[in-house]
């Protein structure tokens, strides 16, 4: 599609949802980037502005969750949703704030998982280099970020729908490469016995420590994105999303901003990829196949891409459906359920579950219609 019509579509959506977004003109942005303020007070200011009662409630909730939930719920539901949510968050950053829908985020995550397997320890001793985890993981994440930057460099030449197709093609190409290459990717069987490390007395293989590891990464990612979209870079990125031509005329390097967004999102996806690899204890081409790539998009869209929390909401719903769709329908028919739910959400709401929630709230509470309930938290 043309740049103009894409922009029109994005602008139309932006107009409909305007108050839901952090506006670049809000004075808080200026406070957030005031270079003269000392770092600590800037952070306090940031926390004061960002944290509200419901944040504290959710935070306390996720912290005590492993003590009230069974190991199954802690590990299979909690940790998996956090890791998947982190990957989906990278897509939210790209698509919701940058206007670039990339399907290759799972590919970046899968590559990070593969690199952890290649650099670290695995059952495939002929390939794995057996580096200690504190060398292997940073290396894997760094290389995955390099790959994400390359993907970004390629796909920012295109706009809108083209981006989806090109990132899809890149992801599938890497999938087939991993499937056919035995010297590096170990073919279709991939790598097994990839375990999270033991640090001191804490064994991250156990459900509760792993849950907290995933939670820590997810929280850092969440607040990182929340902070990023208020920085000059983040505001410029949103400007580019809404009107690239105007931003170019203002002197912004549109391409560099977009590539940088890919790199940052790549870092989030890579960390999520390492987590999900440790969660599964294995990685294979199927871990980054078409179905999984689309699952990440489904998660991000299901939750809503206008706010970072949407990625995690979507991930929780997705993981719950994945685990309990068996009770509703036949075990094999999970894709039908998730595809159907996805279709219903896409057809009925413009912004996933968060959009539905906002619609429900504005319909049932007359009082809050006058107060600014759309405001960004």
């Amino acid at each position, binding site marked *: *599609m*043309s740049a*103009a*019509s*894409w922009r*029109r*579509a994005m602008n139309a959506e932006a107009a409909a949802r305007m108050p839901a977004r952090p506006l670049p003109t809000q004075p808080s942005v200026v406070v957030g980037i005031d270079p003269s303020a000392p770092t600590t007070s800037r952070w306090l200011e940031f926390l004061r502005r960002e944290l509200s009662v419901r944040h504290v409630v959710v935070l306390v909730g996720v912290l005590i969750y492993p003590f009230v939930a069974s190991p199954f719920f802690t590990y299979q539901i909690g940790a998996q949703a956090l890791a998947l949510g982190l990957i989906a968050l990278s897509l939210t950053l790209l698509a919701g704030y940058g206007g670039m*829908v990339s399907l290759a985020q799972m590919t970046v995550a899968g590559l990070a998982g593969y690199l952890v397997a290649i650099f670290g320890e695995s059952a495939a001793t002929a390939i794995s280099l057996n580096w200690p985890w504190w060398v292997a993981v940073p290396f894997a994440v760094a290389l995955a970020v390099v790959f994400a930057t390359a993907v970004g460099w*390629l796909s920012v*030449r*295109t706009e*809108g*729908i*083209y981006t*989806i*197709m*090109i990132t*899809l*093609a*890149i992801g*599938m*190409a890497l999938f*087939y*490469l991993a499937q*056919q*290459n*035995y*010297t590096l990717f170990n073919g279709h069987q991939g790598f097994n016995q990839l375990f999270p490390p033991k640090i001191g007395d804490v064994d991250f293989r156990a459900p509760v420590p792993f849950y907290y590891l995933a939670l820590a990464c997810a929280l850092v990612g969440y607040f990182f994105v929340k902070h990023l979209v208020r920085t000059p870079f983040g505001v410029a990125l949103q400007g580019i999303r809404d009107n690239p031509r105007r931003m170019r005329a203002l002197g912004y390097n549109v391409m560099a901003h977009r590539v940088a967004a890919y790199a940052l999102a790549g870092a989030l996806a890579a960390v999520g990829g390492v987590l999900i690899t440790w969660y599964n204890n294995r990685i294979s081409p199927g871990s980054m196949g*078409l179905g999984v790539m*689309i699952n990440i*998009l*489904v998660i991000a*869209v299901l939750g809503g891409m206008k706010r970072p929390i949407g990625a995690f909401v979507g991930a929780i719903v997705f993981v719950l459906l994945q685990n309990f769709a068996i009770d509703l329908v036949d075990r*094999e*028919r999970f*894709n*039908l359920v*998730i*595809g*159907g739910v*996805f*279709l219903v959400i*896409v*057809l009925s709401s*413009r912004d996933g579950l968060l959009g539905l929630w906002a619609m429900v709230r504005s319909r049932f509470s007359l009082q809050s219609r006058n107060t600014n309930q759309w405001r960004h938290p």
Partner: protein
Amino acid sequence: MSRAWTTFWTLVIGVPLAAFIVWALSDNALLFFVTLLNGLTLASLYFIVAAGFTLVFGLMRNVNLAHGSLYLLGAYSGWLVGDATGSWLLAVATGFVTAAVLGLLLQLLVFRSMQGQDLRQTLVTIGLSIVLADVMLWIFGGEIYTFDPPSWIYGSTTLPVVETYPTYRLVVLLLSIVIGLALWWLLARTRVGAMIRAGVDDRGMLAASGVNVQLVFALTFAIGAGLAGLAGVVGGSALSIAPGEDSRYLLASLVVVIVGGMGSVSGAAIGALLIGSAEQFGLAYAPTYGVVFSFVIMVLVLAFRPRGIMGRAAA
């Protein structure tokens, strides 16, 4: 691009390519020609699938990511009819009609109401492809189905140089040429084709000049979807039908169309030729890295012509 750059790139790409051809011919001419023919026949299959994809995109700006599902649906329904009647030609017709009807329904019931919302349309096609793939897996299971084409196209033909070659592949090649010519005739010589071309260039003006754009859209979607279904039967007869073929052909048409240029039928032909031969030559000469060749082609094209070889900036 200046003339010096054109020369430079012609040399950079052309010289190694020529060197490879000379080496391959002197090393094993038979293998080279068989691979070339394989590449051509695969390209014909890709062209049939991608032509429908690019036609729909060119007119409606709708990236139909359920195109692979239409392919598989055409294949399965064609198999059912072919199995019941024993007629392969009837199976091909069924594949076309089933996919075309589904495409028509999709356009009328779903996409028509979200005209201009490209991202939502794409998301809906993704959801549809998930649901369709699972429904087909439900009905037909994971087994592999094979067609039973008539004997006159199933044997082998004696050709110069390559000696014997499966007749069926030549039929596919011929069929794609016929389809290509038919599409060209439809687009260049008929009134409907003129409307479609006008719609590709400027939707708004076409509607303003009194043409029922929705009708043109529905027709184009039906033709595009039907081509995918037809390719399902034709491709299913060349290889087999199994779950997962949908994403394979979706990827193929994506890459072909990205390389050739979105919305251009001639671009789809060029892209299919490049990707089909790259895949087959990759398979024959460097089996492990076969996929990488088509990827490298895509990267090169994107880096220098972001809209594809025949692509142009749309209004």
